[in-house]
């Protein structure tokens, strides 16, 4: 039937719809959605925000759980194992975090590196061959090492284990420590104390580097007992061990009374000290701190600071904005001038003054001073948002009705108007978090706020300390930079998602 035929419906066929059952108001069968359920529905549709939220949760879990599972406490630092590459025994099976790197060595460097393995294989000082050295489990050379010549110079491309490359160190121990080390050696079957090098001999290149156990000339090249250069590709290295008066190999040198000067294999010494093999999942930084646990500590600090700031801002901003917006007029004018003045002071100056006045004089901790600085300027935007919302709603009919019924100011403000501003407030207090994290990292990077100590650190300090190793050990700066970028991106995405969810009219204008 065409729409134009509607006039020609035969009378008997015409029937009113719903004539029999007059519909009264029917109760909704679906459950009513409150404001937050509605927002949640919209938020869920925004995939990127949901992912961002999951990332945030993951980072928070990382920050708070890592110290529980880590083998190293935050204060752990090992000056000798500093700047080590990421290593994990589990992950190295699939080829990441192996703790190794490729290096091209000259003959001299190759002799030095190979020498560590040879010396490690030679537990009793009776000598070991290059083959034994390469096969030794403590040899830094994992693979490669073939000789090639370019421009009349010999090179060896090797894959080198960063942890084993440290090799040997000299160490001063007391009598009882020495006994203890010998006992541990016996018990674990790991060689800890190796033959002492004759450090005062003419053939010793360095008095501090315990890896020169072989005879060397003045520039560190291996030589034989006659002082002739050895070719590492053909000859074996010649040992330069210290002898006792009876001609046997000496394992220590008595430098002072009760103190023994010994040469230890640092890899085993680490096991002796810490009870497990050295492997840092994210490596160690320039001071020998475990990056993983320091990173968690820094992230925790940033997050705690950001959440504290956000919570305080929310309270102050909401009350201030409510008073401003509700009363308007002179009150608004005066309070606006106050916030004008506060917003005119650059944040960096506020933070500096707080640090100089409160922290340098030892009145409060750096954390508290930073908190003050953030709170002093941070609540302005919350207050501004709340004020705008109050202006929008305070003259609406339902508010007038409430006032006519005799509601007090406080009730009208917080029962009737404030819930309308809730969405905006929540959004802005989430968006405060990334900006606090950024500013905190900036201040600690610049050294204005110093939160670095043996028990805590901050992301900015980690970045600042890692910067000098940017070319040689980029992993030190890489992990903090990744975490802070992830935090910033995901908090911004999450905040934007919340804003869209709470305010459907904003949809699509900014993604």
């Amino acid at each position, binding site marked *: 039937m065409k729409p134009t035929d509607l006039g020609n419906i035969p009378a008997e066929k015409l029937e009113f719809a719903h004539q029999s059952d007059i519909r009264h108001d029917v109760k909704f069968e679906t459950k009513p959605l409150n404001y937050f359920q509605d927002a949640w529905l919209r938020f869920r549709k925004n995939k990127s925000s949901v992912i961002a939220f999951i990332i945030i949760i993951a980072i928070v879990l990382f920050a708070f759980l890592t110290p529980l599972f880590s083998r190293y406490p935050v204060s752990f630092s090992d000056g000798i194992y500093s700047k080590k590459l990421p290593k994990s025994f589990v992950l190295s099976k699939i080829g990441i975090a192996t703790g190794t790197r490729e290096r091209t060595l000259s003959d001299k460097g190759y002799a030095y590196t190979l020498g560590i393995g040879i010396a490690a294989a030679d537990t009793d000082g009776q000598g070991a061959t290059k083959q034994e050295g390469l096969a030794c489990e403590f040899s830094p050379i994992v693979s490669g090492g073939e000789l090639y010549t370019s421009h009349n110079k010999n090179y060896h491309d090797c894959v080198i284990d960063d942890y084993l490359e440290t090799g040997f160190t000299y160490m001063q121990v007391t009598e009882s420590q020495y006994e203890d080390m010998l006992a541990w050696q016996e018990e674990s079957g790991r060689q800890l104390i190796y033959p002492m090098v004759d450090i005062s001999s003419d053939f010793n290149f360095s008095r501090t580097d315990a890896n020169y156990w072989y005879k060397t000339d003045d520039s560190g090249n291996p030589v034989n007992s006659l002082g002739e250069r050895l070719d590492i590709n053909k000859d074996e290295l010649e040992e330069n061990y210290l002898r006792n008066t009876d001609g046997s190999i000496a394992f220590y040198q008595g430098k002072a009374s009760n103190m023994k000067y010994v040469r230890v294999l640092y890899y085993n010494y680490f096991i002796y000290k810490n009870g497990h093999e050295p492997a840092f999942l994210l490596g160690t930084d320039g001071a020998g701190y475990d990056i993983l646990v320091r990173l968690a500590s820094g992230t925790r600090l940033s997050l705690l600071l950001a959440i504290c700031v956000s919570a305080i801002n929310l309270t102050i901003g909401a009350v201030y904005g409510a008073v401003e917006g509700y009363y308007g007029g002179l009150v608004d004018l005066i309070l606006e001038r106050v916030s004008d*003045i506060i917003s*005119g002071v650059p944040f960096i100056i506020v933070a500096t003054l707080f640090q100089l*006045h409160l922290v340098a004089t030892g009145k409060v901790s750096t954390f508290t001073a930073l908190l003050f600085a953030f709170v002093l300027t941070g609540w302005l935007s919350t207050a501004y948002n709340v004020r705008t919302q109050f202006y929008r709603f305070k003259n609406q009919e339902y508010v007038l009705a409430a006032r006519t019924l005799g509601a007090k100011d406080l009730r009208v403000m917080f029962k009737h108007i404030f819930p309308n501003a809730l969405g905006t407030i929540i959004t802005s207090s989430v968006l405060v978090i*990334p900006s606090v994290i950024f500013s905190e990292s900036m201040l600690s990077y610049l050294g204005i706020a110093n939160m670095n100590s043996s028990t805590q650190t901050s992301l900015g300090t980690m970045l600042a300390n890692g910067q000098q190793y*940017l070319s040689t050990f980029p992993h030190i700066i890489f992990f903090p930079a990744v975490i802070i*970028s992830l935090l910033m991106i995901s908090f911004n995405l999450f905040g934007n998602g919340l804003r869209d969810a709470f305010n459907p009219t904003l949809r699509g*204008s*900014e993604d």
Partner: protein
Amino acid sequence: MFKYVLKRIALVFVTFFIIMTMCFILIKLLQPEKPMLGAQAAMELARREALGYNKPILVQYAIYLRNILTKWDWGTSWEIDYMAPVNEVIFDRLLPTVLINLYSMVFSVPFGIIIGIYAALKKNRWQDHLISTWIMIFVSVPSYVYAFIVQYFLSYKTGWFPLIMSSYADAGGTFFSWTMFRSMVLPVLALSFSTIASLARYTRAELTEVLTSDFMLLARTKGLTSRQATTRHALRNAMVPILPMIISMFIGVLDGSLIIEKIFAVPGVGGLYLNSINLLDYDVFMAVGMFYTFINLSSMIVIDLSYGFIDPRVRMGER
């Protein structure tokens, strides 16, 4: 309008004065500087006497204000540049900061706007999604992370540019030589990423809003092609809020970025500020602080006023 401008400017000066008073008192409450008694001990003591260093704080402040108003004298630097007037110390460091930020602005403003326009025109297509994702990432990631990235890849790995900015002497005693320019490329790049991204985001948001408005429909109805309608009507209207933003960015050029200046060893105002804190050179600290405050306030007022200048609706609404 004129009255409005005057009122705003007067308010800014009042605000500035209040902030200055607070800062001065707070700084002077710190551990006072001891006389250095260097090579020019007699002159130094005379200068300290003239600045009222051993008088009560409020008297000092009166002297300070009088010096600024009558002689444009912002005090003396003791630690950074012994006995040099503070305004000279700041002025010497202003040029590198301004240059780096200016280059960055010149580079990123056109880029940002073009990318934003492109994204708005391709709204909800894959180009737009790609650009929006990039914008989100570039806006969020802190600028120092870019600094590390460009340093690592464009300096260490490829060696195309120097790691840090050349010193004044290395560049042949001028900030406009080729060596200097080349060494400025990395800091400029590091600064530009986020500026480009935030401009593009803003442009995109404004333009998409304008493109969906009724007068665009009218423009198309009266026979303009899509291109004509976009350039004549949409872009102009979208520029209304963008222009003040750009203007305030140009004022912010003086402000510089502390962190970028530190990473690239730029001999600018930011470095001076950090130095003045570390060495506790109070007069310099105070003057640089006021400099930052002034820039902060003026960019706020420029945004306020330029809305009135550019958009007649705001001006009308004010009356």
